[in-house]
């Protein structure tokens, strides 16, 4: 894109409604691997409507790159709709399960941190706690950062799922 002004890379969340089949899912992933686009996270799940699925993709790129990604997604025959939620008011959530060591400071301090992030304790052993946290990516990142010094032994994140807010007016309830 030499003749265009390069805009800054930013994070984009794309919500893609597709016919539910693995060939389509592979085609979508293939766009990212084959054409060299960034892919931060991807979730795939059946939709309420039978035979449909929603894929939520978070990617990085400037406006031109994301526009190309959008067009390539549209070119996949079984893609019905692509919504770029980045500039829309959207509800975005991700879930993480974090196992953290209680050896250094004991359970209460870790549980206080969990409380601050509205995380749930879902497993307790002699020297570890497993916490479940949901929220937007920033919140999950923040909790992980706070817990790091205590020793995170294992972790699993879902990646983002997102939907457009029905009300697009100027209210922030995030």
């Amino acid at each position, binding site marked *: *894109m*030499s*003749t*265009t002004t390069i805009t800054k890379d930013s994070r984009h969340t794309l919500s893609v409604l*597709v*016919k539910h089949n693995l*060939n389509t899912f*592979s*085609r979508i992933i*293939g766009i990212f691997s*084959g054409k060299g686009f960034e892919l931060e996270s991807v979730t795939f799940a059946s939709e309420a409507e039978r035979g449909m699925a929603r894929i939520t993709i978070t990617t990085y790129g400037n406006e*031109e790159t994301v*526009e*190309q990604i959008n*067009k*390539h997604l*549209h*070119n996949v*025959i*079984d*893609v*019905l709709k692509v919504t770029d939620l980045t500039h829309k008011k959207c509800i975005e959530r991700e879930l993480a399960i974090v196992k953290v060591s209680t050896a250094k400071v004991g359970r209460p301090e870790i549980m206080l941190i969990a409380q601050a992030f509205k995380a749930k304790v879902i497993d307790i052993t002699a020297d570890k706690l497993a916490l479940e946290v949901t929220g937007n990516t920033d919140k999950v990142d923040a909790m992980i950062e706070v817990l790091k010094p205590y020793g995170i032994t294992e972790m699993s994140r879902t990646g983002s799922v997102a939907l457009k807010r029905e009300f697009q007016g100027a209210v922030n309830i995030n």
Partner: protein
Amino acid sequence: MKSPNTSSTAETSAHTTPLTAVAKASADASALTDSGADILIKTLADLGVDTIFGYPGGAVLPVYDTLFDNHELNHVLIRHEQAGTHAADGYARATGKPGVVLATSGPGGTNTVTGIATAMMDSIPLVVFTGQVPTSVIGNDAFQEADIVGITRPITKQNYLVRDVNDLEHVIREAFHIATKGRPGPVLVDLPKDMLNTKARFSGMKKVEIPSFKPTVNGHHPQIAKAAEMLSNAKKPLIYVGGGAILGEAWEEVTAFAERTNIPVTTTLMGLGAFPESKPQSLGMLGMHGTWYANMAMTECDVLIAVGARFDDRVTGRLDGFSQNSRKIHIDIDPSCIGKNVAVEVPIVGDVKRVIPAIDKLASPPEISEWWDTIHTWQKEHPLVVPKADDRIYPQHMMKMISEVTEGNAIVVTDVGQHQMWAAQHYNYNHPRSWISSGGLGTMGYGFPAAMGAALACPDRDVVCITGDGGFQMSSYELATAVEYKIPVKIALMNNNCLGMVRQWQQLFYQNRTSYSVFGSNNPDFVKMAECYGAVGMRATNPAEMRQVLNEAMKIKDGPVLMDFRVVENENCYPMVPSGAALNEMVESDEECK
């Protein structure tokens, strides 16, 4: 064949059994008289397919058994599945109808891969059917099993694995719909053997509705108006026509528009024939081996309208030196082609056949006599280079003589390399669908089988396959097919005993280190090769012989003829935009490169 099978079965049962409940039930069951293989062949016939290129094997034996009694469908037994896909591709390019291929599982399928990728890059409608191992053993590393749907995913517009025989007919109809509508492309349908044996019912339901696939054909009106206004006021406009104008069958619209407005036209390699080169507005081909004046016009123009072209790197040269001062309009049916390499001011997503007349209606001819003066000066100062004639055959003269002998009316099919570029430069293209060449993928070995496909599709036209000693050897085995089916392809083999374009690049950019690009005396005797297949072979070593051989060859109508033209071996192809240079940084001779 075309009548639904159910009526005939109902008739049979009525004759033989009284109408009891039991008999009625059995009549319903016996309605399932079509095997998947039958349904495949019936659906193809129903879709108007007349020719398929195929090769049998274990997984597709049920289809071949059906074909044994079928005399409606012309099945061409090619000698290699890759050649089969190229032949189907040539058939598609010559007619606009989708080419159809049938291959077996495993290696049969993987052999089609290069042909499918070739079609994908040039947006050619193909439907490829592959056999697959039975559904019960898929994933078990069964004999001749390959995940062909996985392998071809990035090189098909869509592909399918049929897992329920009741879906088969619909999937086939969808495959043809997708291959031909919007931006065309190849579609693969993988058929497990049990699907071909299981019985189901052929419905004959023609309607295909895919809610997620609705290409935009009418351009956005305000954008069309803006484009018309820009062109009307341009001082130095240029029309840049690509393969989309051929695929969209918009040659008449493009020609009418250019003639009325008198705006100069350059075509890409894929667009050759979309605008007649005999017209005064034609600047010929642009790009790496395009004409000097087309490339200069592209560099200097102030309003550029791209018509079904995709700003390929072989067209643009170095991007930051590409047509810097022009305002750009881009018409394409595929939105992902727009803004991919070059930013445009007026994107128009739509079918060129509809958009061009809409612009034509609104645009007035711009005042561009000065622009034409400049272009005429370029044309006078830098015409296409042709060596001075002597008693040897220069490749450029070879192309000119073929153009002359065929009166510019042949379908020219090429391989890839120097001969391809010379054929593009020196043959006079005045008809659409008459230039068939692997532009995007650059597939050597494409020419001869694609020429067979074109010749089968257009029996009343002369088909000349211009090839090289390298490319021809990649599919020479198809001589057997051409002889068997009496396909009158004229093979004009530009024999310079080397991989000319590779050697040219090595000479220019690798200090003349001609690594593994020169065959020298290790080439076979091509005349004997033709003869051993039962084809006619002829050789020419000077221009007089070449004319004689060409005249002789054009008379042969009942089989292939191979013409071994011994050309000047060291000739290189110019003008050339060296790799990494801007479009106006052309070199015109070996001397200039030193």
